[in-house]
């Protein structure tokens, strides 16, 4: 299913990825799933609380996820998924990503170097956890 992200929200993900570089950033994708397309209405920054190696690991704490879910529902929206950055790595999910992924969420990955975001792709975990399917990002 395509994931629609407007230019403003794409820019906010890019800004967050650049601000966090060389560490990974992460945040929530909030919006509406209308069955045929998922429409991102807002992106919310999360704190990467992974204790070490934040240049290649991120963690969003459960109580922050719960807060995002509740705040999205208050606005009659849902938590569509999450974005995170891969500094100096491709915008493809790693084995570590797969082991930690939830079904149903969109996982947007931004690949960037020191200067700019070079690629951004979105992925969903297969039901049997065997891998990911890519979903198109549309503007």
């Amino acid at each position: 299913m395509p994931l629609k992200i407007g230019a403003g929200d794409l820019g906010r993900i890019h800004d967050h990825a650049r601000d966090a570089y060389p560490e990974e950033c992460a945040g929530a994708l909030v919006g509406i799933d209308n069955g045929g397309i998922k429409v991102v209405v807002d992106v919310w920054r999360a704190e990467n609380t992974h204790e070490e190696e934040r240049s290649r690991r991120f963690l969003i704490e459960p109580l922050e996820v719960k807060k995002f879910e509740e705040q999205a529902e208050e606005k009659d929206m849902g938590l569509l998924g999450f974005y995170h950055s891969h500094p100096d790595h491709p915008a493809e999910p790693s084995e570590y990503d797969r082991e930690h992924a939830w079904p149903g969420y969109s996982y947007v990955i931004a690949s960037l170097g020191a200067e700019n975001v070079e690629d951004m792709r979105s992925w969903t975990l297969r039901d049997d956890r065997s891998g990911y399917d890519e979903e198109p990002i549309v503007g």
Partner: protein
Amino acid sequence: MPKVKIPSPLRQYTGGDPEVEVGGATAGEALGNLASEHPDLRQHLYTGDGKLRSFVNVYKGDEDIRYLEGQDTEVADGDEISIIPSIAGGTAERRCR
């Protein structure tokens, strides 16, 4: 029976229900019964060797069961158990670009 709150990514396996009542005297029993009643959900809660996945957080009321008695935490009728995701990921060790 205790009630288990289901996070949105797992509701597709409970017929869309955000909350499910299941039997069980402990949090672990209740989760096990939930997985038995909704078999497609099991692999997302448990690893292949039957351990709760590290990013699956279970709360009784407002307390993480890790700080109570873990899966042996007793639960009673009407208690609310919440499954709350943590979100984690990252890149492979090797620099590949």
